[in-house]
């Protein structure tokens, strides 16, 4: 029997239970009934706080994922250069995801499920990286600040290496990279990325 909770406490309890279930079974593997059962409340109480399962899923992600304000702060604090902005937003993202790897589990579950709605959520969360890299490379190329590179593919390379580093450290806990700190590893990967696209800081 669940005791009476304040609305904010109830909402937090729903989010906590939903996060565990979604990361364990994916979006389609969890029903509103199951979440309600785990909480010991009726589905009607759950719908009082979230209009749909999709809204609840998105809110779970919003709670874990890096907030946009955090990217704004990174840009405000940066010198505005490609290398510093990308490095700073990467650090913000890595900090938020490593704090709660359930986010990565949900992303993996989403990939396996092939659900358009959840795939879109994650794609949007990669856009600060993919769009920024693609647009900036296109703009820097005529200035000779980067070598001839397809910005879209460079963005894919960046996304791939960052995602793999997070999986290796936070999900698989791969022994090969055990002695490397996650921040150190991602910083090094960002440096390799700039080297790969032939970025020249001074002309940027």
């Amino acid at each position, binding site marked *: 029997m669940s005791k009476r909770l304040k609305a904010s406490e109830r909402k937090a309890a729903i989010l906590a239970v939903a996060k565990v279930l979604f990361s364990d079974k994916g979006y389609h593997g969890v029903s509103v009934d199951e979440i309600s059962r785990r909480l010991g409340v009726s589905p009607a109480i759950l719908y009082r706080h979230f209009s749909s399962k999709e809204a609840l899923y998105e809110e779970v992600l919003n709670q874990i994922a890096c907030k946009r304000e955090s*990217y*704004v702060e990174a*840009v*405000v604090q940066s010198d*505005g250069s490609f290398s510093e*902005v990308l490095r700073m937003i990467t650090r913000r993202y890595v900090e938020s995801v490593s704090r709660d790897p359930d986010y990565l589990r949900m992303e993996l579950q989403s990939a396996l499920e092939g659900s358009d709605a959840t795939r879109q959520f994650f794609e949007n969360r990669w*856009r600060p990286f993919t*769009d*920024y890299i693609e*647009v900036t490379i296109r703009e820097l190329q005529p200035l000779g600040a980067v070598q001839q590179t397809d910005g879209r593919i460079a963005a894919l390379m960046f996304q791939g290496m960052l995602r793999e580093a997070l999986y290796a450290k936070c999900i698989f806990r791969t022994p090969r990279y055990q002695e490397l700190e996650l921040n150190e590893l991602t910083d090094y990967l960002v440096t390799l990325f700039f080297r790969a696209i032939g970025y020249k800081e001074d002309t940027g």
Partner: protein
Amino acid sequence: MSTFDLELDARGLNCPLPILRAKKSIQTLSSGQVLRIIATDPGSVKDFEAFCKQTGNELLDTLQDGGEYSFNIRKG
């Protein structure tokens, strides 16, 4: 509708690009001058609120017209 001194077209761009462009544009203005930004990313509403809070510039107004957003920011 308020007047502005410089206009920035950030249509089609997503976070962090509109903020980055706004930061660079506002550096060219003097205190009290107004930058107008036009954007299409719905997330830019929250982004420019956060931007103004963090930089001490004043968000004079936010307008939405269809899929376009315009922000008038007075340099602090």
